């Protein structure tokens, strides 16, 4: 009762300090317990995304082996140790609502297999439609399992089979480039197109170096 009515600032300060210390202990404990799970969850979502990129079948974990060129992270995709493709992770700050991150799957000759947006905060209904690859559920099919493979997206699909060989203008048509954009979401379309172009051009520019680096023996995976 005495403590409850206390106005002695030393007592008050000590009490608050003790509460803070207790909560810090609880948080340290929880953080320690969840840290491995969080890491696993992040890796899981990344490798799930990598599996969708239309690579030929692969059996390594591409997130282990990576090299960065001009801000684009390249990862080796292998089957039985042999290089079957390159995954690239690029990001841009010129989205309508901040950062957009994407994964691009390349054949070893630089042709794009598929593009997948992994992180964005665009406006629902506008910019989100440019970034989202989602199987459309309706009342007629929501009980059926979603079809396998990568859901279509007309903006992202136009990058497939393209290659940065100097013939393609990696800009949206509004800016004089080769790619269609979504009306009402020009900023997002532009950001995605230019980011993909940058990834493709970086790959074309450093292709020899990247292949040479990945041609060296794959690092032993220690688990």
């Amino acid at each position, binding site marked *: 009762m005495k403590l409850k009515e206390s106005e002695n600032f030393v007592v008050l300060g000590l*009490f608050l300090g003790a509460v803070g210390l207790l*909560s810090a202990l609880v948080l340290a404990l929880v953080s320690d317990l969840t840290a491995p799970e*969080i890491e696993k969850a992040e890796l899981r979502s990344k490798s799930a995304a990598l599996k969708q990129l239309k690579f030929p079948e692969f059996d390594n974990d591409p997130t282990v082996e990576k090299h960065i060129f001009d801000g684009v992270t390249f990862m080796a995709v292998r089957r039985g140790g042999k290089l079957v493709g390159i995954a690239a992770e690029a990001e841009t700050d010129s989205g309508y609502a901040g950062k957009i991150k994407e994964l691009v799957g390349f054949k070893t000759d630089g042709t794009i297999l598929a593009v997948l947006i992994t992180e964005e905060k665009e406006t629902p209904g506008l910019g989100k439609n440019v970034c989202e690859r989602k199987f459309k559920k309706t009342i007629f099919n929501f009980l059926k399992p979603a079809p396998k493979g990568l859901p279509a997206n007309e903006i992202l699909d136009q990058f497939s089979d393209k290659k940065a060989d100097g013939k393609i203008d990696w800009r949206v048509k509004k800016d004089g480039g080769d790619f269609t954009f979504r009306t009402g979401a020009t900023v997002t379309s532009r950001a995605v197109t230019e980011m993909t172009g940058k990834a493709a051009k970086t790959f074309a520019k450093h292709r020899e170096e990247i292949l040479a680096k990945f041609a060296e023996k794959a690092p032993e995976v220690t688990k």
Partner: protein
Amino acid sequence: MKKYLGDIIRGIWKENPVLVLLLGTCPTLALTTSASNGVGMGMATTFVLVGSNLVVSLIAGIVPKKIRIPVYIVVIATFVTVVDLLMKAYAPPALYAALGIFIPLIVVNCIVLGRAEAFASKNGPLRSICDGLGMGLGFTLTLTLLGMLREFLSSGAVFGVKVITAWETDFLLPAAAPGAFIIVGVILGVRNHFRRTAAIRAGKLYVPPSEIDCDNCRICKIDKED
């Protein structure tokens, strides 16, 4: 037993945090763009409410009056961080991506501090848990309802399932913040109408809360002489 049940029911209907107490409007308006977002945010808030109510009711007896608010905030912030870490580890990535930036905001959600101060600090642990559960459920149900309405009006879908398949293009107003204000307003109006007719039928005079009573509002009369 009846007392505990009453504590739960009260939060869901009679003192619904969003529709009656009008607390926690920020997450209500910002997050309910889809029904599943509403469920996720509601459940996270419920967990924090129950946890903080329990701890506050246990320590209320020894916390010095002068520093009770900072102590409660530390307790709440601890629970919110725990929820954040747990969601990061176990929740579906899509849900965390949508709610992630709003989870830290539960700390300053007035529902949580409000219940700690108004209820948990004056009642025992069991009743406080029931109160937290009731308030949390009320919050979750309202957010889900709002999310369903907004998702349906903007894209013809409920929980991601398109009900009206002919709607190809999204209608953006209900998905944006202004639409949320309008829909919350309509729900409040409907609720008040029902309470009023019920009160008249029972022969009682219904007095709406002064903040939402038209007689007390000056907006329409602003340029008229008094």
